[in-house]
C-alpha cells in the first residue's frame, strides 16, 4: 500500500510544483494536449449531453476520438462548452463501454454472439406476443436516442408488433411541459428561440437551476446581464443554487406550493395595469374546468390569490411576490425559463399553464426578447420523442394514435395495415412498469436509459425488471438496469453513428459517424431493424439501409405539420448548424418566432385572417381554437405527499453541474468525479441545529419508501424545512426514496417533493 497523503501534504507538494512550473518545468506530465498534436481531423457535431444542444467539434486522429472542442460557428454556444462536454471523448473511450452482446445464463450475464442474442430476443418476443398479444410487450426509450432510433422503435412496436406500449424517459422530465404548451398555446414547444435571451430585460427562472442544469444558457444570461446592468433576474426555487449569483430577487417557496404565487403575480399584474388588454381581447380565451369563461370570471378567480393568501400557502413574503410581479410587468421584455422544478410535479401541467398565463395576459410573447420558454433536459427529448412520437399516445411527426386519419397516414408510410396501429394510447411509463411488476407486460426492450436507477420509487419496479423478460440496449456496462437484464445488447455510442438531435429551441442538428462502433457494438436503429426482421417483419424493415433513409421517411411525415422539417435534408443539415422548424422547403432558413409574421405557416395560412382581426399572432396549433391561446384558471393544489409530524421535511432532488443522469457517461471522466466525488444531503443550518446535525456527519434520510445514508452538508441553500439530494450516484440512488405519484394529465412523476425525515446514522 503506497503512502497516503493528507490534504496538507498535497498542498505542500502542489506549492513546490507550482514553483518549479513557474520557471517552465511541469512536474506533473500527463495532461493530453490533443489539439497540439498534428493530424487531428475535426468533425462538426452536437453535444451528447443536455437539451441546450451546443455545437461541438469532434477531434479524431487515426480512428480514435481524442478531443472535443466547442463549435465557434454554432449560434447556440458560439464555441463555448460546459465541463461535461469537454470530457466527452473520455466517455467514448471508457473501459465501461460494452463491446459484445450478453445473455443471462444460470443467473449470470455471459458473452454471446449477435446471432444468438437477437434470435433469443426475437423468439421470446414472438412467443409472448402469440400467447398474450402485442400489449404484453413494451418499449422504453430515451430522450438521448436519435430521432432515427426512436423512429425504428415506433415502427417495430406500434406498427408491426401492434402495441402502443412505447414510452421513453422524457415522460419523467418533459411531459408536463408538453401538456402545458398544448393546453395553453395549442401546440408543443416554444414560440421563440435562444436568441431572445440577448433581447430580454427580465428573466424569471422558475424551478430551474440554470447554472448547473443548462450551463451554456446560464452563461448567455450572465454575459447579457454583465453587458446590460438594467437586466433583472428573478428566481423562484426552494433552494439557493449557483444560479443565484445573478439574482436580483429570489422567492423561496415550500416545495410544491408555488402555484399560488403565479396566480398572485397575475393578480398584481392585472390590478396594477400591466395587463395588455388589446392582446387579451384579440388573442386569448379564459378557461376553467367548466369551459370557456370571461375575463371578469378570471379576475374573480384571482381574488382567491392575493399576495397575502399566496404568502400563507407558499411561505414567500407577499411583498416579494408583489415585487416580482412588478419587475415582470415593468420590464419591456421578459423570458420565463423553467425545467424540472415545475415539470416533475403532481400538478406540473398546471404550473406550466400558470407560467404561460403571465406571458399571455401581459402580451409578453411573440415579441423579440419575450417568451415562455421551457428548458429541455435531454438532447433529443424534443426532437426524437416529442416530435418523433416516442410516447404511448403519439405517432411520428405530431400525429396521434387516437386519430384514424393519422394512423392511416403513418401506416401507409410504414407499409403496414392501418389496423396494426391500435387506436387507444398504450401505458404511460409508471403504468408500464407497474404492469411489468404485475406480469401483464411480459417482455420489455429498454434502449439508452437506466430506469432501475432513474424511476421514482425505483425499488418498487425492480420486481418486474427481475421477473419478466428484459432486453437492454446500452453503450455502457454495467448499469443498475443491466443487473436485471436477460439480454444486453452493445449499442454504438455518439460519434459511432449518424443521426439527428432536436434541442430545446426547435433546432434539429445532424451528428456524423466519425469512427466505427467499438467491438461488436451496433447502431440502435440497426439493432431494432434487425430484430424486426428476425421477428418476421423482413419486408417492413428491408429498406432501412442507411440513417438517411430513415430520416427522409420521417421528415416526409412532418410535411404540412406545425413541425414541418421538409427543408431539413441530411445534405443541408450536414452543412448548417441546425435548422429551427417549421422549415418547409430546402431554401427556407428556419423559423425564429412561431404563430406570427415570419413563420411560414402563419404567413401562408393565417396572416390575412389575423390582419383582418387586428391581431399580431395566430395560435394555429392543433389544440387551439380560432387561433387563440388559453389562460387557465388553475387553483392551488398540495403536493401528493405533504410533510407532516411523522415526516416533517420536504425532500427534493436535482443535479450538479458536473454530472449527468445516472453517471454512465460523466462517471468515465476522472475530472468530473473529482469535482463532486460523492452524493450528499444539503440541510438548512437552522434545521441542522434543531436536529443537532453537524456538517459532514453521516445521516439517514427516511421516507415512506425506505431509508438511505448520506453525508450531511449543512449549508444555506435549501429553504428551511427542505433537504436536497443530487440524484446521480449509483451507490446512493435517491430516487428509491422519491414518490411515484404523478400528474393526472401529463403522467409525469413528482420527483421534486416527498415527505422525509432525517436522523443521525
Amino acid at each position, binding site marked *: 500500500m503506497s503512502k497516503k497523503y493528507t490534504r*496538507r501534504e498535497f498542498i505542500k507538494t502542489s*506549492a513546490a510544483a507550482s514553483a518549479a512550473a513557474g520557471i517552465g518545468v511541469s512536474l506533473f506530465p500527463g495532461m493530453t494536449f490533443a489539439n497540439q498534436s498534428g493530424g487531428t481531423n475535426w468533425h462538426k457535431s452536437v453535444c451528447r449531453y443536455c437539451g441546450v444542444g451546443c455545437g461541438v467539434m469532434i477531434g479524431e486522429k487515426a480512428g480514435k476520438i481524442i*478531443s472535443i*472542442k*466547442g*463549435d465557434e460557428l454554432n449560434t447556440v454556444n458560439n464555441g463555448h462548452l*460546459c465541463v461535461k462536454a469537454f470530457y466527452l471523448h473520455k466517455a467514448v473511450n471508457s473501459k465501461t463501454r460494452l463491446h459484445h452482446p450478453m445473455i443471462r445464463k444460470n443467473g449470470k450475464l455471459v458473452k454471446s454472439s449477435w446471432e444468438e442474442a437477437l434470435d433469443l430476443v426475437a423468439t421470446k418476443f414472438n412467443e409472448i406476443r402469440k400467447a398474450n398479444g402485442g400489449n404484453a410487450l413494451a418499449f422504453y426509450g430515451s430522450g438521448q436516442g436519435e430521432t432515427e432510433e426512436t423512429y425504428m422503435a415506433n415502427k417495430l412496436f406500434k406498427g408491426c408488433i401492434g402495441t402502443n406500449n412505447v414510452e421513453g424517459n422524457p415522460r419523467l422530465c418533459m411531459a408536463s411541459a408538453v401538456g402545458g404548451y398544448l393546453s395553453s398555446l395549442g401546440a408543443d414547444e416554444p414560440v421563440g428561440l435562444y436568441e431572445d435571451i440577448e433581447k430580454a430585460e427580465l428573466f424569471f427562472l422558475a424551478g430551474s437551476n440554470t447554472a448547473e442544469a443548462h450551463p451554456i444558457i446560464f452563461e448567455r444570461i450572465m454575459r447579457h446581464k454583465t453587458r446590460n446592468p438594467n437586466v433583472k433576474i428573478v428566481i423562484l426555487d426552494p433552494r439557493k443554487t449557483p444560479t443565484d449569483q445573478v439574482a436580483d430577487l429570489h422567492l423561496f417557496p415550500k416545495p410544491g406550493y408555488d402555484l399560488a404565487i403565479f396566480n398572485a403575480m397575475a393578480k398584481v399584474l392585472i390590478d396594477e395595469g400591466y395587463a395588455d388588454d388589446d392582446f387579451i381581447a384579440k388573442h386569448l380565451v379564459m378557461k376553467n374546468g367548466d369551459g370557456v369563461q370571461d375575463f371578469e370570471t378570471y379576475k374573480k378567480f384571482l381574488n382567491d390569490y392575493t399576495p397575502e393568501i399566496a404568502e400563507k400557502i407558499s411561505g414567500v413574503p407577499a411583498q416579494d411576490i408583489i415585487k416580482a410581479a412588478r419587475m415582470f410587468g415593468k420590464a419591456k421584455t421578459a423570458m420565463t425559463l423553467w425545467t424540472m422544478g415545475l415539470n416533475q410535479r403532481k400538478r406540473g401541467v398546471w404550473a406550466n399553464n400558470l407560467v404561460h398565463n403571465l406571458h399571455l395576459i401581459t402580451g409578453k410573447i411573440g415579441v423579440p426578447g419575450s417568451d415562455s420558454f421551457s428548458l429541455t433536459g435531454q438532447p433529443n427529448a424534443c426532437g426524437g420523442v416529442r416530435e418523433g412520437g416516442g410516447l404511448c399516445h403519439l405517432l411520428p411527426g405530431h400525429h396521434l394514435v387516437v386519430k384514424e386519419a393519422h394512423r392511416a397516414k403513418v401506416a401507409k408510410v410504414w407499409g403496414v395495415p392501418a389496423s396494426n396501429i391500435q387506436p387507444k394510447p398504450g401505458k404511460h411509463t409508471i403504468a408500464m412498469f407497474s404492469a411489468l411488476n404485475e406480469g401483464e407486460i411480459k417482455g420489455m426492450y429498454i434502449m439508452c436509459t437506466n430506469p432501475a436507477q432513474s424511476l421514482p420509487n425505483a425499488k418498487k419496479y425492480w420486481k418486474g425488471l427481475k421477473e419478466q423478460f428484459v432486453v437492454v440496449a446500452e453503450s455502457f456496462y454495467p448499469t443498475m438496469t443491466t443487473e436485471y437484464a436477460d439480454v444486453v445488447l452493445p449499442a454504438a455510442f455518439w460519434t459511432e453513428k449518424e443521426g439527428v438531435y432536436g434541442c430545446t429551441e426547435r433546432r434539429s442538428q445532424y451528428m456524423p459517424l466519425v469512427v466505427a462502433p467499438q467491438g461488436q457494438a451496433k447502431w440502435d436503429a440497426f439493432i431494432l431493424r434487425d430484430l424486426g426482421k428476425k421477428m418476421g417483419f423482413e419486408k417492413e424493415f428491408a429498406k432501412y439501409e442507411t440513417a438517411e433513409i430513415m430520416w427522409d421517411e420521417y421528415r416526409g411525415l412532418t410535411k404540412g405539420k406545425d413541425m414541418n422539417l421538409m427543408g431539413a435534408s441530411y445534405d443541408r443539415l450536414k452543412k448548417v448548424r441546425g435548422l429551427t422548424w417549421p422549415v418547409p422547403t430546402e431554401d427556407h432558413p428556419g423559423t425564429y418566432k412561431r404563430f406570427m409574421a415570419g413563420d411560414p405557416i402563419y404567413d401562408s395560412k393565417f396572416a390575412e385572417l389575423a390582419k383582418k382581426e387586428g391581431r399580431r399572432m395566430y395560435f394555429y396549433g392543433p389544440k387551439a381554437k380560432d387561433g387563440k391561446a388559453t389562460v387557465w384558471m388553475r387553483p392551488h393544489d398540495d403536493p401528493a405527499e405533504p410533510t407532516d409530524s411523522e415526516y416533517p421535511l420536504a425532500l427534493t432532488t436535482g443535479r450538479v453541474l458536473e454530472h449527468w443522469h445516472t453517471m454512465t457517461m460523466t462517471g468515465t471522466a476522472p475530472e468530473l468525479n*473529482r469535482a463532486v466525488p460523492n452524493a450528499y444531503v444539503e440541510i438548512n443550518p437552522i434545521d441542522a441545529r434543531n436536529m443537532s446535525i453537524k456538517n459532514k456527519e453521516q445521516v439517514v434520510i427516511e421516507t415512506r419508501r425506505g431509508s438511505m445514508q448520506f453525508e450531511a452538508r449543512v449549508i444555506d441553500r435549501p429553504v428551511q424545512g427542505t433537504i436536497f439530494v443530487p440524484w446521480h450516484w449509483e451507490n446512493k440512488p435517491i430516487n428509491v426514496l422519491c414518490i411515484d405519484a404523478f400528474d393526472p394529465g401529463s403522467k409525469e412523476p413528482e420527483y421534486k417533493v416527498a415527505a422525509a425525515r432525517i436522523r443521525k446514522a
Partner: protein
Amino acid sequence: MKYKINMILSVIVLTIALALSCSSLCKNAQVVEKSVAEFAGHAEVDFSVSCMECHSESTPDIYEDWANSGHGKMNYGCYMCHGDGMENFSVQPETDMCINCHSSASGHLMRMENQGCFDCHDGHTLNP
C-alpha cells in the same frame, strides 16, 4: 493560515533548490513527480473531497480569485485546467486546454503569435 505559511516556505525552499543547478532541478522534479503519482493512486484519501473544498481553506486567495472570475461564476472548477490529480495534473495548463472551450478565441490567439493565453490572462482571475 498555517497552510499558507507551509506553501510559502515550500515555494522559497524549492526556488532556492531550483536556482542551484539544472541537475538539482531535475532531481527535485523527479522526487516531487513521483510523490504526486503516488498521491494520485489514493482515491480513498483526499479524493473523497473536491479540489475546491480543500483549496477554499488552504489557498483562500487563489480560491477567491477563481470564484470571482468567469470560471468561478460558471463553477468550472480547478480540474478543468489542472486535471483531476489522479490521472493527470498540470500545474501550468497549456493553452490548447483553453481553446477547447473558447474556440471562438482561436483567431485572437493566432494573432498573438507565439504567446499563450496565460501570457496575458491571469490563470485564476482570468484578467484582463
